[in-house]
């Protein structure tokens, strides 16, 4: 594992991006940051700018308008960057698979490291997903 990635996993800063979700996944993601679940104890911090982020949390089904913004953000994020698809929509577009406005799944636009299914996934599931991500890329 590269030194960069090892350093990144000690304290991954997450950036939260909604690509046209119904906001449920976003609420559950923000729930992870509250004192009750408190992902800061794993060193995770919500980054205010994409340029400070190590992990990209993506929710929503990638509609035509937000895909352009997603690509712009992916160009700006410092690599290595890990991508977590939160919710059924980000994973497989859910019931919006035939929507005129959602032509491509998230993982055909940017590489995805972990999928967290659920509509919406519970904060526990999101945290389990992030722990899996850290284990997968070889962190502690």
């Amino acid at each position: 594992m590269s030194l960069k990635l090892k350093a990144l996993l000690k304290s991954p800063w997450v950036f939260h991006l909604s690509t046209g979700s119904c906001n449920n996944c976003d609420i559950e993601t923000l729930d992870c940051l509250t004192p009750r679940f408190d992902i800061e104890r794993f060193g995770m911090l919500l980054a205010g700018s994409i340029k400070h982020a190590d992990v990209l949390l993506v929710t929503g089904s990638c509609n035509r308008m937000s895909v352009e913004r997603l690509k712009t953000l992916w160009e700006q994020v410092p690599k290595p960057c890990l991508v977590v698809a939160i919710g059924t929509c980000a994973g497989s577009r859910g019931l919006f698979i035939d929507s005129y406005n959602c032509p491509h799944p998230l993982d055909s636009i940017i590489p995805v490291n972990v999928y967290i299914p659920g509509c919406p996934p519970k904060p526990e599931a999101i945290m389990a997903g992030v722990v899996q991500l850290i284990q997968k890329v070889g962190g502690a």
Partner: protein
Amino acid sequence: MTREDVLADIRGRFGADIVELFDKSPKRVYVEIRPQAIVRIGTHLFRTLGARFNIASGTDMKDWIEILYHFTIEDLNLLISLRVRLDPGHPEIDSLARDIEALNWIERELTELLGITFTGHPDPRRLLLADNWPEGVYPLRRDYVEWDGTADRTRGV
């Protein structure tokens, strides 16, 4: 003004323009009107009867295109839905957005998604669809077919 007064007022003033007045329930009245009268009846409800404009909704009903303009009179707990039927070949109606500002965006949305022309709309720019969406393709019409050859409709698993 009571509920009966309001309905009598609408009937009295616009009797020639009303196709059908369907009194569904104590809270809900559907008034089907001729499309030419929408500005007169809509502004009368809004300005004189003190109704609040909620939203407009459009549907492709196969043989016609329907718009429902939902107005609420909150003091009476009454929802009045003005229904117009438009020709699906050339759906065209006068814009209410000049008189009621709240209709500005919903008329733009109806234009994009159902292809309804609102004559005299003050700001007929594109609102929701992506910039590369082709002209003349309306996604909520029944005859919509996918135009994007690159679209992937598989689950990918």
